């Protein structure tokens, strides 16, 4: 399944709004939203890597960084 784990939208900005527009607003749509019941025999990380990442399955791994920082 090819889905991006981050979505965005541009909120309406009125000419009378006091602050400059933020531009895009971001929100996360992590893999668990799309999986349904986890299929059998998914690939796994090594135990050491799984402990570091917080999940045994690459299919559920979703690295997060501040999207507003990246934009600047």
């Amino acid at each position, binding site marked *: 399944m090819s889905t991006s784990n981050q979505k965005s939208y541009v909120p309406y900005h009125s000419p009378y709004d006091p602050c400059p527009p933020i531009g895009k607003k971001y929100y*996360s749509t*992590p*893999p*668990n939203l799309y*999986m*349904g*019941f*986890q299929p059998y025999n998914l690939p796994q990380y090594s135990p050491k890597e799984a*402990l*570091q*990442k*917080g*999940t045994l399955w690459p299919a*559920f*791994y*979703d*690295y*997060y*960084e*501040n999207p*507003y*920082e990246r934009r600047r």
Partner: protein
Amino acid sequence: MWVYEKKLQYPVKVTSCNPTLAKYLIEQYGGADGELAAALRYLNQRYTIPDKVIGLLTDIGTEEFAHLEMIATMIYKLTKDATPEQLKAAGIADHYVNHDSALFYHNAAGVPFTASYIAAKGDPIADLYEDIAAEEKARATYQWIINMSDDPDLNDSLRFLREREIIHSQRFREAVEILKEERDRKIYF
């Protein structure tokens, strides 16, 4: 009964002396969608849910206490050596005058923890949907804290906690599917 392992679920390292981050993290300690509320909610729901998913609630509720311990460690490290002046500059003077640097179960705005955070409707579907929402809210809270934090080591631990929320949400979603008893049904069609 529980067995305690005398170590954190994931290492907590804090690079910079930034007590302001403790002010944000306290939301996950004693806030409505924090780890304490989550742990108590899940463990309490175990008694009135079908047998098939009791074990899941025990596992996840227990893990939430491990997360609570990580958050406590972060807050402690961020505040233990801070002077009253530094705490004042960080906006937690109110906390200091009441508690010194002791931890307390309240949210980022200083509202004390309350049992009304812990939802228990007794309806398995309503309760599990509540749990899914709680995990997604905790995931979002971690994102907002990461957005506010510029401490790379702290963010590493927070990313681990955020990933666990994703997995917990997945397992609660699967629990709903188990209770719907639709799993694999189409193989008989």
